[in-house]
């Protein structure tokens, strides 16, 4: 193979002027983590609202919620990010559009919220499945006790549903982290983008991508470990996952 390996490259100064190539990659990792966390919050909030809406008896609410899910599931994430980043500011009133365009760290906000909304449709589906998997009697018992619909969801259905869908939520969180890399197309300098930039500056392709790969694997391992702990802590006694 006619490739010149140089693993010492990570300790050489990067052309960005601050620190070595390694610090450059680590800064990318920080953006990846920050984007993933904000996206996850957005995904959980919107996913929960839409997921609950899909289980409510009202017909209109159900149609609105499933339109939401279909919209975000049937357009590629990359195209969605382009819509939020390039198209949305032009369709808004001029002042709002200008404000959006001049926002500091615009790729970060757009990327995080865009990925978050994309993931929220998947979380809505998971939560709906979780709520539907509960025995009918639980909602009925809530009603029989005189709880309102809101109270039934808050105290009876949701605490159970979230705990049941813990394992799929773990993989959706991992997907969120992976999907943040798509935001490099709108200029977010996250981990994959930094690895690509390092390759362009130094021509050490495989070292850069190996380092990025290892960092992603480490991030995955941490998330899986943390979620396992959480899963154990909140497992419902009496279910297979519980004790």
């Amino acid at each position, binding site marked *: 193979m006619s490739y010149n390996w140089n693993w010492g490259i990570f300790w050489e100064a990067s052309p960005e002027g601050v620190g070595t190539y390694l610090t450059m990659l680590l800064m990318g990792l920080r953006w990846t983590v920050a984007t993933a966390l904000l996206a996850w919050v957005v995904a959980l909030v919107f996913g929960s609202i839409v997921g609950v809406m899909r289980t409510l008896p009202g017909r209109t609410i159900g149609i609105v919620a499933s339109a939401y899910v279909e919209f975000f599931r049937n*357009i590629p994430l*990359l*195209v969605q990010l382009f819509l939020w980043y390039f198209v949305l500011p032009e369709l808004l009133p001029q002042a709002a559009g200008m404000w959006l365009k001049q926002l500091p760290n615009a790729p970060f906000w757009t990327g995080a919220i865009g990925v978050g909304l994309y993931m929220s449709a998947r979380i809505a589906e998971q939560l709906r499945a979780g709520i539907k998997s509960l025995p009918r009697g639980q909602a009925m018992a809530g009603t029989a006790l005189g709880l309102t619909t809101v109270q039934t969801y808050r105290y009876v259905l949701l605490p159970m549903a979230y705990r049941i869908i813990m394992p799929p939520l773990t993989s959706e969180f*991992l997907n969120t982290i*992976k999907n943040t890399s798509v935001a490099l197309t709108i200029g977010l300098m996250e981990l*994959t983008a930094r*690895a690509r930039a390092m390759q362009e500056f130094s021509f050490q392709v*495989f070292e850069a991508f190996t380092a990025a790969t290892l960092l992603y694997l480490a991030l995955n391992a941490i998330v899986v470990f943390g979620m396992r702990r959480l899963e154990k802590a909140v497992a419902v006694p009496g279910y297979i996952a519980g004790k």
Partner: protein
Amino acid sequence: MFTAFDFDVILRSLPYLFWDGMTFTLMLTALSALGGLVLGTLLALMRLSNLPILGAVATGYVNLMRSLPLVLVIFWFYFLVPYIGQIITGAERPVLVGGFASALITFTLFEAAYFSEIMRAGIQSIPKGQVSAGYALGLNYRQVTSYIVLPQALRNMLPVILTQAIVLFQDTSLVYVLSITDFLGAASKVAQRDGRLIEMYLFAALVYFLISFAASRLVRHLQTKTAIIR
């Protein structure tokens, strides 16, 4: 707000968008779904085999692929494939590989990991008695696998496989990062040439939506048709 819109740019670029772009996207989707399914089935069989080494290799591969972002994997293979080609052909320099071939190899290898999980679930859903019955009839491993297990696993998993293919169809848009002219790439090139980002991206979103939505409806319909009633 639509008064400043130039819908003509879409009409003018339709042949380019669909003939150059969509053909690429659909070819890439179909071929890598097929390749990924074959390779994924092999990986699933490796994982379920009695040889621990085969299982470990397949598990390692699947877990590695599934924990990396597709964008990073696209970059990896874009740079790696020429060197692999060099090793295979014994050429003196890294082999030049076209955009389509590079994308096809990437997506086949990447999707194989996902298809292997689907096929593994499909194979494991077959009752053990069926395999035992096959052996009792005097069939060997290859015959039991190809005449009894795989046909049923494929049929049980068909809706999931097709859903994964729709995901793949959407994911092929990521070849944009290599400046390849797939459907989105074509739309984006016209958008930048004519300064018509809004029209082109909205149109691209609409086309992706219609195709994916129609396809997933078809899959749902198929699901009710092919379901085996037990």
